[in-house]
């Protein structure tokens, strides 16, 4: 037991403690994130790509689908910065517009995946028993579906559009994240602080939202950043099959798949390196940012 004197002593502000030591949790997260150089680099790159996609018309003198049959397969030069494709369209312009599709698909489909996965995983892990059994069997069924045939059927019914691709990716992709969240919650649920929450009369909803999910944040973020990357790539596969974006609209995925023949790979490097590099840089930056965010959100890690 601290004596009266001791209590008084700890009440006084400690020497060298500045006002910034009493920050709100969110400010602490932002401060820690800023200190992580790699994460900030990732954030900057992703922001630049996103801004480039949004302001694409302002960044290029060419139009997206402007065909010029007199200037096909041109090498990069001062007019067409990244050359032109087989129809003479400016490749740099198409890369900028392609970013719109690829980033949207990645973000939206991953958000759908996470929302479904986290809700179902949280419920399954927290309530356990029959609820858990039912949800996890549904997840098993969903992960057993052969992805491409289901996607083809789905898009055939709803019509090929980029929104349907996002929906398919989201609706079929949730079992992975669901399983991760459920597993973590199963183990967290048995911790003593959950028993304390029960003893305090905290409602189930708040127990899941305030106690369990914040503790699973690390794996959700890692899984989400990985998910964006794989969604961008899957979109390219679907576009290749004619299920994603319709031909004149570019996406990084279908630009890559258009370039997939030996002649192009050997002699027209500007048709496959830029979209490939764009996907790589975007995915890499998202991963770096995700890792940084995960660390910043974990109060246990030293600053």
């Amino acid at each position, binding site marked *: 037991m601290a004596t009266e004197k001791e209590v008084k002593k700890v009440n006084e502000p400690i020497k060298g403690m500045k006002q910034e030591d009493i920050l709100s949790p969110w400010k602490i997260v932002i401060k820690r994130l800023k200190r992580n150089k790699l994460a900030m680099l990732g954030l900057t790159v992703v922001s630049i790509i996103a801004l480039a996609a949004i302001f694409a018309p302002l960044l290029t003198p060419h139009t997206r689908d402007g065909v010029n049959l007199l200037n096909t397969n041109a090498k990069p030069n001062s007019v067409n910065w990244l050359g032109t494709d087989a129809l003479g369209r400016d490749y740099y312009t198409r890369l900028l517009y392609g970013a719109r599709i690829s980033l949207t698909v990645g973000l939206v489909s991953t958000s759908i995946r996470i929302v479904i996965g986290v809700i179902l995983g949280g419920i399954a892990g927290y309530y356990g028993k029959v609820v858990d059994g039912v949800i996890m069997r549904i997840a098993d069924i969903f992960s057993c579906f052969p992805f491409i045939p289901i996607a083809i059927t789905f898009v055939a019914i709803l019509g090929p559009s980029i929104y349907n691709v996002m929906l398919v990716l989201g609706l079929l992709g949730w079992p992975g994240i669901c399983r991760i969240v459920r597993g973590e919650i199963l183990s967290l649920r048995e*911790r003593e602080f959950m028993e304390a929450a029960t*003893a305090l009369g905290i409602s189930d909803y708040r127990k899941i939202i305030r106690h369990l999910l914040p503790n699973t944040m690390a794996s959700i973020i890692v899984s989400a950043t990985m998910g964006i990357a794989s969604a961008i790539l899957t979109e390219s596969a679907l576009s290749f099959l004619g299920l994603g974006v319709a031909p004149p609209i570019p996406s990084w995925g279908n630009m890559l798949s258009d370039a997939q023949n030996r002649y192009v790979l050997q002699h027209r490097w500007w048709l496959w390196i830029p979209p490939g590099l764009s996907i790589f840089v975007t995915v890499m930056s998202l991963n770096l940012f995700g890792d940084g965010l995960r660390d910043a959100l974990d109060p*246990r890690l030293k600053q």
Partner: protein
Amino acid sequence: MAEVVDNIVYGDDLLVVNNLKKYFPIKAGILRRTVNHVRAVENISFTIKRGETLGIVGESGCGKSTTGRTLLRLLEKTDGEVFYNNQNIFELPKSEMRKLRTQMQIVFQDPYSSLNPRMTVGEIVGESLREHGLAKGKEVSERVQEVIEKCGLAPYHIRRYPHEFSGGQRQRIGIARALALNPQFVVCDEPVSALDVSIQSQILNLLMDLQEDMGLTYLFISHDLSVVKHISDRIGVMYLGSMVELAGKNELFDNPLHPYTQALLSAIPIPDPKLKRKRIILQGDIPSPANPPSGCRFHTRCPHVMPHCKTDVPEFKEAADGHYVACHLI
């Protein structure tokens, strides 16, 4: 055991436990059928008076913690009754039970796993106030500050996370969390076992001061006899899920009647190497609670075992005034 309950004067007793049982099923096979039960708590009856501290001692695995958790309804009972303020808590609907939780709280053994690592101290202590609508906005932080200061922490600790504290401080946070709701009854489930000895006494004195200030009633669970002796008014001794002896602390230490209590007391170390004392060393190991011995549960290790100990369950009866014991010798 029935007489214990019959003798109860209800006005005095905050908590009445009557033939409480808690079994955990053992499941086996593909169909996960219940093949047996772990009889963690078997027919326990006792009462706790307002403002007193009842200590419960016993070896690990004897059902002390299960008892504590079952009578807060953190675990559902198998059989029996628990009356809190004359209300049978197992008959209350979920919403009523949540309201009652503001009055009965628990302090846990492990100060590391019992605090959510992602919440600040302010959130941990203040959460229940918001949840039960007992305070709003600024009142919450005022109340939190008041409670943590009472528990020997400083106001600037409010924004810190649990990992920034030492074990003793974390235990203070756990106590502050339990006391934020202004409860009447607190189960202390080995609150000092995970702390080193110098911190143990600080926490024990804090608990005793708070009891005086707030008029708290404690159920104090421990395996450490000297700790229990320091803090308790009455002490119950448990062995393999049953209570074998219950008496005032001085009565229990001066005049232990049950052979198990006698053995337990003879094991307390004396800080004087010259002093020799007769140690009662029990033979064998503690039997499995899944398959407890017939008759008296202690008969396999009792130095005074008699033939009928193996068949008849001894009654938990009053041997002297307020001194209950379950043994055929008495």
